[in-house]
């Protein structure tokens, strides 16, 4: 396993574009900390985001994993191109000729994806911990380490998303087209959801189906945290709306995403087995 990771590391780290994107991603992740600096001061109306409780434990786990989840697109580009470039440079052929088995080849990519997801998760954990220790109103140990399932969900979310990228790269073989295809598919899923939702406003059937589709299932892992904020809740109750909502990470949400991930990896492997290079 270390040998395969090492191979993949040499390929990625010597590629300037990948290196810059990876660095940019982690710099952006750290810049979550900058949110704490958001302050509005309009005379009467003073607003300091960090003081609105977004960095309170355990809410911070939810908030930060959600925001960090939005940045995953950067690494998607790296992952799609690390697969598609092997086709355009024909190095996949050379790798196999040099004695890598097809299984090892796919595994080296999957391990890399896992490592990316893992490092991101650890990174978000550390940053959130630091931010929380600075800004949180509650710093009791058992509160700090509650709700950590959001980090698990974050890891699964990245892993699932990157597996999709891996498969798209394998299937389409050109990075730009593969990323384009993912974006197009995202819009198809998103807009068709909105349209069907409009038709069947009163029933759950649309949600029940879409919860099983790739993007919706990824999205479900970490529900949007905004409405959980104290300020937003107050506004809503003032407007007479009840925003109480199920924010928890459910096992079946994880299971659906893991199911997709397994399918994407298996299909990538099948493609490699069946294709003549």
């Amino acid at each position, binding site marked *: 396993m270390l*040998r395969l990771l090492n191979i993949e590391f*040499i390929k990625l780290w*010597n590629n300037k574009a990948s290196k810059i994107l990876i660095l940019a991603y982690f710099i952006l992740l750290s810049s979550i900390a900058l949110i704490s600096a958001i302050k509005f001061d309009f005379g009467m109306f003073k607003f300091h985001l960090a003081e609105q409780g977004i960095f309170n434990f355990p809410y911070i786990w939810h908030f930060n994993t959600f925001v960090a989840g939005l940045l995953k697109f950067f690494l998607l580009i790296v992952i799609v191109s690390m697969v598609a470039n092997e086709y355009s*440079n024909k*190095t996949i052929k050379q790798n196999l000729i040099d004695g890598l*088995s*097809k299984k*090892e080849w796919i595994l080296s990519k999957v391990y890399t994806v896992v490592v990316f997801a893992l490092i991101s998760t650890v990174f978000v954990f550390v940053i959130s911990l630091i931010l929380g220790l600075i800004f949180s109103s509650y710093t009791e140990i058992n509160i700090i380490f509650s709700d950590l399932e959001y980090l698990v969900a974050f890891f699964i979310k990245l892993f699932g998303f990157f597996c999709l990228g891996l498969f798209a790269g394998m299937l389409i073989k050109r990075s730009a087209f593969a990323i384009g295809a993912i974006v197009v598919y995202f819009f198809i899923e998103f807009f068709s959801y909105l349209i069907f939702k409009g038709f069947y406003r009163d029933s759950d059937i649309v949600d029940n189906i879409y919860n099983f589709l790739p993007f919706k299932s990824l999205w479900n892992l970490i529900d949007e945290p905004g409405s959980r904020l104290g300020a937003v809740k107050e506004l809503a109750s003032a407007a007479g709306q009840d925003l109480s909502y199920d924010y928890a990470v459910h096992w079946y949400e994880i299971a659906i995403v893991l199911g997709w991930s397994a399918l994407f990896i298996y299909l990538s492997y099948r493609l490699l*087995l069946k294709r003549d*290079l």
Partner: protein
Amino acid sequence: METILQISNLTKKYGNLTAVKNLSFTIKKGNVYGILGPNGSGKSTTLGITLNVVNKTSGDFKWFDGAISTHEALKKVGAIIERPNFYPYMSAYKNLKLVCKIKDIDYSKIDEKLEIVGLTERKHSKFSTYSLGMKQRLAIASALLNDPEILILDEPTNGLDPQGIHQIRAIIQQIASQGTTILLASHLLDEVEKVCTHVVVLRKGEKLYSGRVDEMISSEGFFELKYEDEPKLLQFLEQHASIEKTTQKDGLITAFLNTPLSASEFNKQLVESGIYISHLVMRKESLEEQFLQLTDNK
């Protein structure tokens, strides 16, 4: 002799097209093999199948008597296919490091092999800055990294300038002289004739000949003749016991022998029959003529 690769009844179909048809041959240790065939005769497909990048339709192949899996076997093989494939953004040295990792060997051989192909000075330049000849030489260095049991070269001089071709051939000959088994696929006959001891001739995916190169050029040779009274000469040739057949082209009559006959003896016989020819040359067929005959006739 130890068997390195055995191919039996290998067939590959791309849709309706049969690229390789029921092909069988064996590669023994220590020989230099050539696979000859025009473009599209299935050379690269055959190599691709044995190298785990093309899926066979039917048949079988075995590396090293089938004792180990194909990808393990490939770690003991050095191969270049069609054109050199490396990571363009990495230097030659780093590319070779990657190959070492894949083949599970240490980095100690990299400098030695770069020296053999004469790339030591440019080893830290990016692969994308290399000329085609340099890329091809780097590919050979990469294939040699593990001191392979067999070196497989698919059209190694394709697209190179004369100097590049010469360099590559010199390298191949040097490697062959060290006793490494080589399998060289090419449509360039003089290339095969110069370096190979054995040859497999393919046409449209079918094997036409396999065996030693010198046995392939085994005919007794032929005479090229010129004489004003052609019908008389032809009549003489027809009755001659040693002449298998004759052809006529551009005023030259070519007479093919089926038993050994020296030019002077033949000339004497002609004179005794009252034929004084104006042109007599005895020649042996080159591999090229043999090859063309083989591929045309069937």
